[in-house]
């Protein structure tokens, strides 16, 4: 959004992360505004997933803090969680449940009570697989089951760790369009990916670079 007063949704304040006695990043600060699509870049092991987990509040940083609309996320966890949609590189899809049951569960646990699971699944091309156990689906379909939540949410902050893994080209384009629409609605997307994106141009995409450091 090109508002004159962009709202800051999430900001990182001097984050430091240490894993296995290696400093992944040090004093990292940034603000993410409504309407931003942010890609965290860096080689394997640079700390992209660690950074996403810290922003989501799953891990604690060694130093520094993550702010949601100016408040530390550990102090306003309920409001933050209500506004946050996080998809890790583990999809959180139960292989013993069908695609529809999985979606039903993840939407209800996020608090939604009125939705049409079949309609949402059709948006991720899973029509005809609603009754299939997620364990019997292909890797891409498995991933799509998790991604289906993106089509029914009013969370503004999306944190997505490698959302395009195992998704075909057409699916990636659909997701990119969804991200753009989400950013236009005043949301933000924070993600990592190694794939090139065709729809989201460089003008729309903000990048945060992490380097692999030997310290």
């Amino acid at each position, binding site marked *: 959004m090109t508002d004159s007063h962009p709202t800051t949704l999430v900001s990182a304040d001097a984050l430091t992360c240490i894993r296995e006695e290696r400093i992944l990043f040090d004093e990292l600060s940034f603000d993410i505004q409504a309407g931003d699509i942010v890609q965290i870049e860096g080689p394997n092991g640079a700390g992209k997933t660690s950074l996403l987990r810290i922003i*989501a*509040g*799953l*891990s*604690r940083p060694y130093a520094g803090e993550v702010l949601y609309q100016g408040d530390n996320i550990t102090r306003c966890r*309920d409001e933050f*969680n*209500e506004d*946050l949609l*996080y998809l*890790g*590189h*583990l*999809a*959180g*899809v*139960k*292989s*013993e*449940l069908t695609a529809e*049951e999985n979606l039903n*569960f*993840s939407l*209800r*646990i*996020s*608090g*939604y*009570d*009125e*939705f049409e699971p079949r309609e949402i699944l059709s948006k991720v091309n899973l029509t005809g697989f609603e009754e299939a156990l997620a364990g019997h689906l292909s890797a891409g379909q498995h991933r799509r089951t998790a991604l289906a939540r993106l089509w*029914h*949410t*009013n969370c503004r902050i999306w944190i997505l760790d490698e959302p395009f893994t195992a998704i075909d080209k057409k699916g990636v384009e659909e997701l990119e369009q969804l991200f753009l629409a989400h950013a236009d609605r005043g949301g933000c997307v924070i993600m990592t990916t190694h794939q090139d994106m065709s729809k989201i141009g460089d003008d729309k995409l903000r990048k945060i670079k992490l380097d692999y450091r030997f310290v």
Partner: protein
Amino acid sequence: MQRGISYTQSFFTLLQRDLRIAVRHRGDIFNPLLFFIMVVTLFPLGVGPEPQMLSRIAPGIIWVAALLASMLSLERLFKADFMDGSLEQMLLSPQPLPILVLAKVIAHWLLTGVPLILIAPLLAVLLNLEQNSYGALMATLALGTPVLSLLGAIGVALTVGLRKGGVLLSLLILPLYIPVLIFATSAIDAAGMNLNYGGQLAIIAAMLVGSLVLAPFAIGASLRVSTN
């Protein structure tokens, strides 16, 4: 896009999901039950079939076997959810974490604790338990096994991130199980001698109420630490 799920609804959503998964994965239910039955039936073979001796040790055997069976089944409580990322989603859910973990623990107890309670009187016959003790046996198991699940879940939550957490888990939670074992067997013994066992039962009930209220918070906090 209304968000109108109440706490009770989210509790039952999770409970229903866990029960459904368990029904599709039946081995998980039968394993602890089979263990319980085997331990109890092997004892008369080991110590000899003398009825008096058996009825003397019956309360202890049944309770120790139930305790170990419950511990054996606990390790899987959060493991699968941790491995496939559902646990992260639960931690980030806008619903209060203690309610969600309470649903998981109760689902676990329904699947592993309740079958033990139902089969226990049958096994008590094999061990020639005193006629008067059956009521006490059922009452202590009904009040005691949920305590085992709730306390054990704290240990499981603390060790879920470890690759080989099994040994640590036993060391962590066995000391917490001992009071339940002492009061339960003492109640059954008292009942066998036609004494009043209300006191012991009240203490186990107090432990149940205490852990029902406090354990979900401890489990939630432990899960946050483990997934850090």
